[in-house]
């Protein structure tokens, strides 16, 4: 247990000044700007927005700078900031079918309506370090452009969700549509059992590394779900907020999001015929690994609903949802380095006493040998 301590003010003040100097680095090197972080370390910004659970690009960039690039620390800063602001309301659910798509791929259909576009991706790069980036060299070549297809309409290409294609044959389960208002983790503490909307909110703000490992575990056989990437898409969607005083939804602007539709083979059960089932991932920014991992874990957590056997950690809702939040996790792990002197003194006394009793109990010969 942590017991409050006092004192150390001067040392703490000096440590923070030293931190500020260390953060700045060599003063002969130009200071990094928020716009540089926001514009050039975009995927770090996306992760901080997703797991900080706050869409604000400049703010996430500031947090990354202040945290010296420690993304979990930056996420912590963003979460703390959001508690200072009033909540204006809940947005209307975004419509990903109307996304201005910057990337859209499928591993299940090579010829999808609307086609597949790779967009800005690391996929198919050779993962060789590029020395030309080290020297502040020439600007990159202007990317090629191609004319839009005729059905692009008013600027939005017709790109139906891949799950709608399978839906036409009735071979994939429909998305649940109870019409219920979702519970909100930021307004009420997590309780079990959690329904799927609450689980998805938890996973959407959950740690990418944790979800990646859990998703990976399902692939390796710990609750195997036979996944295919039905579709991953990334781009901008419009956000609207219903404003009471106006009586209609006000368009707020656009946010970048990534969506993953995982399609899973399913043998069927007594009630349900063989069909494909689904896992869903959704995250702020271009957060593909996160969205894919989330979709795998979402599907694994649905085991009971689909009549599957519980056999692995990724299916354990209480385990997964209670440990996914990296701000909570880092708080509890890192608090161990704060002074625990009183606690430890008590333990020390206890061990000394036990040791003495242990020694007393030893046979005489052993004690002599030890001496």
């Amino acid at each position, binding site marked *: 247990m942590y017991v409050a301590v006092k004192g150390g003010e001067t040392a703490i003040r000096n440590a923070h000044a030293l931190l500020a100097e260390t953060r700045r680095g060599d003063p002969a090197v130009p200071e990094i700007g928020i716009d540089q972080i926001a514009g050039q370390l975009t995927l770090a910004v996306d992760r901080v927005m997703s797991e900080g659970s706050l869409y604000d690009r400049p703010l996430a960039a500031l947090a990354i700078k202040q945290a010296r690039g420690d993304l979990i620390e930056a996420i912590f800063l963003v979460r703390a900031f959001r508690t200072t602001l009033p909540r*204006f309301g809940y947005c209307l659910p975004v419509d990903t079918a109307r996304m201005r798509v910057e990337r859209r791929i499928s591993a299940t259909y090579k010829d999808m309506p609307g086609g597949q576009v790779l967009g800005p991706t690391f996929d198919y790069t050779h993962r060789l370090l590029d020395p030309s980036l080290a020297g502040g060299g020439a600007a990159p070549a202007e990317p090629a452009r191609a004319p*839009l297809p005729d059905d692009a309409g008013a600027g939005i290409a017709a790109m139906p969700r891949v799950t709608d294609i399978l839906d036409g044959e009735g071979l994939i389960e429909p998305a649940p549509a109870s019409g219920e208002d979702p519970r909100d983790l930021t307004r009420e503490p997590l309780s079990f059992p959690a329904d799927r909307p609450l689980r998805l909110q938890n996973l959407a703000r959950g740690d990418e590394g944790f979800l990646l490992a859990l998703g990976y575990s399902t692939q390796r056989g710990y609750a195997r779900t036979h996944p295919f990437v039905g579709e991953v898409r990334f781009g901008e969607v419009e956000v609207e907020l219903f404003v009471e005083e106006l009586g209609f939804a006000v368009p707020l602007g656009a946010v970048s999001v990534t969506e993953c539709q995982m399609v899973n083979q399913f043998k069927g059960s007594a009630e349900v015929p063989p069909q494909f089932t689904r896992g869903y991932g959704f995250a702020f920014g271009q957060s593909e690994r996160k969205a894919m991992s989330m979709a795998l874990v979402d599907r694994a957590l649905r085991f009971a609903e689909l009549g599957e056997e519980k056999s692995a950690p990724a299916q354990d809702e209480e385990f997964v949802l209670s440990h996914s939040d990296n701000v909570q996790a880092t708080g509890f792990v890192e608090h161990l380095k704060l002074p625990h002197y009183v606690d430890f003194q008590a333990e020390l006394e206890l061990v000394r006493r036990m040791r003495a009793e242990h020694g007393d109990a030893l046979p005489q010969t052993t004690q002599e040998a030890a001496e």
Partner: protein
Amino acid sequence: MSVEDGAPQGDQALRQAMMATLARATAEELKAAVERFKPLPPIHDLRPAEVGLAMVRGRIGGDGDAFNVGEATVTRAAVRIEGGPTGVSYLLGRDPVRARAAAILDALWQDAALRGAVEEALAGVRRRLVAEALVAQEKTQATKVNFFTMVRGED
């Protein structure tokens, strides 16, 4: 402060479209648009620009039940132009200057006599947005991929 009572649906859709443009306009563009209407009558800040949060929602599978994803920062403002209608703005981000300018333009737009001029003032913003979207889409379209399935040998 409802100003929508009795407003026909068509008007509301037009106002939403105008607000969508305001939401994507830069601070400079909004400032320039307001400048066109100067000198303005006195403006009363019914709600000084204020930063807050809106919870963004998604749908399971893209089209199923709603769930909460995470919040976004939003700035809102409300103004009344003396002798005229009330203007309201809600914009993503934290920019009180943008929010106030957008609220003023919303108020001006509701004055039937000025609506055309506001639309004209925003025409440049619309053109920029369309042009930028087109460039982005053409670059994306150039990454359209056609995979071919290789025929495996007799096995």
